[in-house]
């Protein structure tokens, strides 16, 4: 069973429409470590060694955050800048994350339609998440398809959110059991 580390970044959980439920839903599950970054580092003073140790202890990393201005909240960017060090995550000897997987769990205000060529956002959601997939490539992380909850501004009724939270939980449980043969073959091909 894979061990999952959820790095959660939400600067205003008291206003959260979706993530509070999503994050609550995955608490207290064996093999899933929930790490609320804003709660752990209110002053953004990230403990690099601790974070790296956490990464080493887990097989699958989840970045869970609301999409703000087409990117992640500041602390998660800070986390990437500090924790994914040269020599640790990338670079000549930076292979500590090799073989691990990364999945984003993202909520968007706009609807699924808006994230298309014809919508007002003009691009597919994956276009906006490009920095993350590229980061994964550099760090030798396998980038998994993101878990996206769209249209939070208009459709945040409790039933829908509860359904999404349940889907999210199921998704993580599936990831725990995921066969990583596929990854191994890919690595060997490289």
């Amino acid at each position, binding site marked *: 069973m894979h061990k999952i580390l959820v790095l959660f970044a939400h600067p205003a*959980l*008291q206003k959260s429409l979706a993530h*509070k439920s999503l994050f*609550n839903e995955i608490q207290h599950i064996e093999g899933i470590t929930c790490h609320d970054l804003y709660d752990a580092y209110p*002053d953004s*003073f990230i403990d*690099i*060694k601790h974070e790296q140790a956490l990464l080493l202890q887990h097989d699958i990393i989840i970045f869970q955050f609301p999409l703000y201005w087409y990117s992640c909240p500041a602390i998660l960017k800070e986390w990437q*800048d*500090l*924790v994914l*060090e*040269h*020599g*640790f995550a*990338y*670079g*000549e000897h*930076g292979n500590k994350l090799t073989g691990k997987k990364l999945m984003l769990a993202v909520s968007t205000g706009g609807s699924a339609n808006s994230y298309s060529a014809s919508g007002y956002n003009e691009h597919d959601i994956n276009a906006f998440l490009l920095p993350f997939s590229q980061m994964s490539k*550099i760090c030798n992380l396998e980038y998994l398809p993101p878990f996206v909850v769209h249209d939070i501004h208009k459709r945040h009724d409790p039933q829908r959110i509860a359904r999404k939270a349940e889907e999210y939980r199921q998704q993580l449980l599936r990831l725990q059991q995921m066969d990583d043969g596929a990854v191994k073959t890919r690595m060997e091909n490289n």
Partner: protein
Amino acid sequence: MEHGVLFNTFIYLAAGVVAVPIAKRLGLGSVLGYLIAGVIVGPYALSLISNQQDVMHVAEFGVVMMLFLVGLELRPALLWQLKMPILGTGGLQLCATTLFIFLLLLACGLAWQTSLAIGLIVALSSTAIVLQNLQERELMKTEAGKNAFAVLLFQDIAVIPILSILPLLVIQDTTVIESSIPSWQSALMIAGVIAGIIIGGHFLVVPLLRIIASSRSREIFIATALALVVGIALAMEAVGLSAALGTFLAGVVLADSEYRHELESDIEPFKSLLLGIFFISVGASIDFNLLLDQPILVALLVGGLIAVKFIVLFVTGIVFKIQRSQNWLFSCALAQGGEFAFVLTSFALQRQVLDNEIASLLVLVVTLSMVFTPLLLIIYDKVIAPTFKRRLPQQEDKETPEHQIPDDTDSSVIIAGFGGFGQVVGRLLHGYHINTTILENDVGQIELLQQFKYKVFYGDAEQLNLLHSAGADNAKLFIIAVESASRTKRILIQVKKHFPHLTVLARATDRNHAQQLIRLGADHVFRESLDSGISLGVETLKALGMRANQAHRAGQVFRRHDEAVLHEEAKRIHEHEPEFVNRSLTERRILKKLLGLDALTYYDNLNDAWSTEAHSNQDKNTVGNLAAAHKHNKSSS
């Protein structure tokens, strides 16, 4: 049997001391314990006491004190919120019970006057028993508790008109004893006394307490509190009002004052003791001869009384939409006759409204119904409550949103000491409307803060009873912000010992003090000089040309490093206690060591973040190029 005062006192106290712990251990509650103790020392068992009627009269004063304390808990605003339950629930209960009993007795062939008199007398419930039981079970804040209290309050007020109605129910034509004062004049006097209590409470008593508090003489403060209660009781009785009602009013008036907790903790022991004696004398006054003569009749009457009161209460509860489980509790709690019944019965006897036979039967029935109340509540606990509990738990979880700060009194913060340090903490919390209770023993400070609507109380935070009445049992956090290092330690020891559930955040004067506090079990320790020292250091680094964010980071690194070393030291010194003997030497040694450690860790562990080339060989592979480009982008933007 006649005994000396001391002997009687001893018997009462000893009976309580023996019976109450046993009763509590058996889960019967202290009220039942006292009642049983009364029966045992009473004339039908050991026959150890005499004059229990006189004793009872004195002990009734416990009820008066209890109402004073209840008043202290009820701020005027809260009382106003309760107006609906008081008038509605209380009124309906009293009228319906009276009517029901009246009709029943009428049907049994009693004269209408007698029936009405008895109806009025037994409609009243026992404030003493109900409140004592509910408080002991910590149920006063529940819906049932609040409604029960409202009903009792209404009954206390209703005693006044009942006292004036009873003489009109005389059957034989006897000369009606006219009051020597015309009624409008007595009404005026009543209004005057009540106004006096309210105005005097605000403008005389509070300043008086302030003066006495500043003299810092505890026994005089207690004496003042007692004199206040007794004085009001006397004034009320002089104009023919219930003393309990008067002291209750005085309590409400003083509930907003900063001395509320102090008054509470001073009166509380007297109240409990007197109430205990009152219950013992109720137990002792049960007339077992009468009971043995007509056991079936008495049983029927007691059962009937409880049943009628219970049904009326339950229906009242339904009318006023009390939750079902709470309604059971509410109805069980109030289904008995009260101590006012004794007063009213003897009054009715004097005015020849009731004859001797009925009066003594009435007293017996009421007494027995009081004895059964604790038993009813035990039945509620064991049989009725569990059936509701099984249905509830799922719903309750979801009601409170997790990340909101709950705003009820039960999750509040207590701050001991409100000097410069405590003020910063208090103002911050106050700004976010967090329920804080402040304990301070500087009178000048209190006055100032009250102008800004702070909840401040006068008292010494080391005292256990003050901590209790300040709500330490229900609070979540306890902040020690007093200036004196030794007082901080004493308060910490007291809080940790008696309220282990509290998270304690303590102010420390220096490093040494901080370590002592950690060892004494403080959950979080804050050195008063640390943060300002670091801030100054950070400013210095900036003034020397370091970029602000780098300087800030340096400050944070230092802070964490220093805290870690502090906790490490605290643990280690614990193992070698003698090191502590020469304090200044130890401190110098610690400092020396710290300076060495600082130099080592000052490099921060940022060496590999936000940078690439410095630690890599700038390899030509894709990754290296990308990273270099990344670096380049950053420096150019």
